[in-house]
């Protein structure tokens, strides 16, 4: 009884395996992230699940409907926002949405009500009768997002919904997606390149070269990945002694470090000690990006720009 179930799915394009035996499931109402570098097979997987492509082998169900045998029924229950825009730029915002609603058999009244409601949620009500070619890239993306939700799908597939958006619009898009998940209980399957966006998803899968290399709750994956480090800087020899006694290692130059599962607990213990004279300290928790890079390799692929792993720095 899962929204999505995938078993040993394969897809080859003339010999190259774009999807190379993946299995996972997504529960109803879950926000599920599919992360992976360019060419990992994310779009191919979405196309198969949305019945646009036939798998070479394997089985998958959406809402307990089989993707090959019951594709017609599945299409009534899913929404898809493509990686590339598929709006009709010669038509207005409203026309784009209305035609979509008609294709799902919605009545004009129901469609119009729903369109206005969604447009105002996403802040586009003043663009209702504008030709889509006059909208900005971010507006178009938001428009596609609500088009995907218009017919109240049970499962919504989003292929890179925030690509090319500015940070503020990205944040807006995510809060809208989470709001829809909360209000309508929509199951959401989303691919993204922005790894940090996935840290509060319910579950994620990391895919590389057509294989899933990790799947689970992002926070749990992180804690399984390993330990945080706490580093102190001090010029005081008494303080140094105390830190060493608490298990820290001397890194030289007055720096002391410990690796720990629970940096918060360690800090509480040390900060309660009397007479510490610390100049500087730093806590390094692993972030999703590091996990991701460690699993998919850190080589730069296509448009990937290698960024230094973000660090949390506290100073008192």
């Amino acid at each position, binding site marked *: 009884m899962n929204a999505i179930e995938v078993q040993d799915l394969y897809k080859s394009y003339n010999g190259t395996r774009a999807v190379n035996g993946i299995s996972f499931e997504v529960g109803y109402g879950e926000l599920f992230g599919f992360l992976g570098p360019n060419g990992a097979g994310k779009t191919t997987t979405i196309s198969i699940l949305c019945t646009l492509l036939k798998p070479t082998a394997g089985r998958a169900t959406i809402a307990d409907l089989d993707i090959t045998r019951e594709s017609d029924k599945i299409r009534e229950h*899913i929404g898809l926002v493509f990686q590339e*825009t598929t709006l009709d730029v010669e038509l207005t915002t409203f026309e784009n949405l209305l035609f*979509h609603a*008609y*294709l799902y058999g919605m009545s004009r009244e129901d469609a119009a009500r729903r369109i206005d409601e969604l447009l105002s949620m996403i802040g586009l009500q003043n663009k209702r009768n504008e030709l889509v070619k006059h909208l900005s890239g971010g507006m178009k993306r938001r428009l596609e997002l609500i088009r995907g939700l218009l017919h109240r799908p049970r499962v919504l597939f989003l292929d890179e919904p925030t690509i090319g958006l500015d940070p503020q619009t990205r944040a807006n898009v995510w809060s809208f997606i989470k709001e829809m998940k909360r209000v309508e209980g929509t199951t959401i399957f989303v691919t993204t390149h922005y790894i940090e966006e996935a840290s509060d998803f319910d579950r994620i899968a990391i895919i590389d070269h057509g294989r899933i290399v990790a799947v689970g709750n992002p926070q749990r994956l992180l804690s399984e990945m390993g330990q945080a480090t706490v580093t102190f800087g001090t010029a005081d020899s008494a303080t140094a002694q105390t830190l060493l006694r608490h298990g820290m290692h001397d890194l030289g130059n007055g720096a002391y470090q410990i690796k720990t599962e629970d940096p918060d607990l360690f800090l509480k213990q040390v900060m309660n000690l009397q007479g510490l004279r610390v100049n500087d300290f730093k806590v390094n928790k692993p972030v999703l990006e590091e996990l991701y890079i460690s699993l998919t390799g850190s080589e730069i692929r296509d448009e990937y720009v290698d960024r230094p792993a973000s660090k949390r720095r506290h100073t008192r």
Partner: protein
Amino acid sequence: MRKIILPIYVITVRDLKKFFRQRSRLIGMIARPLTWLFLIGTGLNQVIRGGLGVSYIQFILPGILGMTILFSAMFSSISIVWDREFGFMKEILVTPVSRFSIAFGKIVSGMLVSTIQGIIIMAAAPFIGIRFTIFEALLLIVFIMVVSMCIAAIGVFIASMIKSFESFNIIMNFIVMPMFFLSGAMYPISVLPAFMRYLMYLNPLSYGIDSFKHVMFVEFAHFHSDFSLFADVVLMIVFTLGSTLLAAVAFNRQQKE
């Protein structure tokens, strides 16, 4: 029923809106045949003494009408290939709409867009001395619709057989242009050598243009037409039904690869 009608309605309304909003395309689509008519018609009018009651510019009007239909209906259908990669077609294929109604919707919209242009060209007739009664005009519009539908269906069939837009030039050179020249548009079929004549018999546009001649040159039709009106009508219907069926099947099959 709603499930079959609505997508046809959506596709048609969308294509018509786009058609009327793209002014430059609209103007081009109408200007080209009119330019052909007046430049070629007037020029050759001096060289080719029409005789038998019809001048050359009058003689080619049915052919120019056929050309207009051929280009506009074919273009409308081939846009599927474009839309499949960049837009609307991609979107519509995720919806629960049946593949047959998508294919049929595309045929209907191509038929309407092409009929509108055909009627505009038909309106040029009185200016070059071809007159017809209201009844003949209505009959002509019906023929225009049938030919348009047939070409649109062939277009959908071709669009379902090709994978990418790169094949577009091949289609223009090896299908559209031969269809135009081997249709009796520019010269009567009877002047051609036998093997070309057989190609023309396979070309549905031949019967369409021939039916236009029957209506436009009522008194002189027996000199200028190549087939009987009855044969034209029957064959056009057969071709239209056949190509519509073929288009629907090919479209449906392509989506299943």
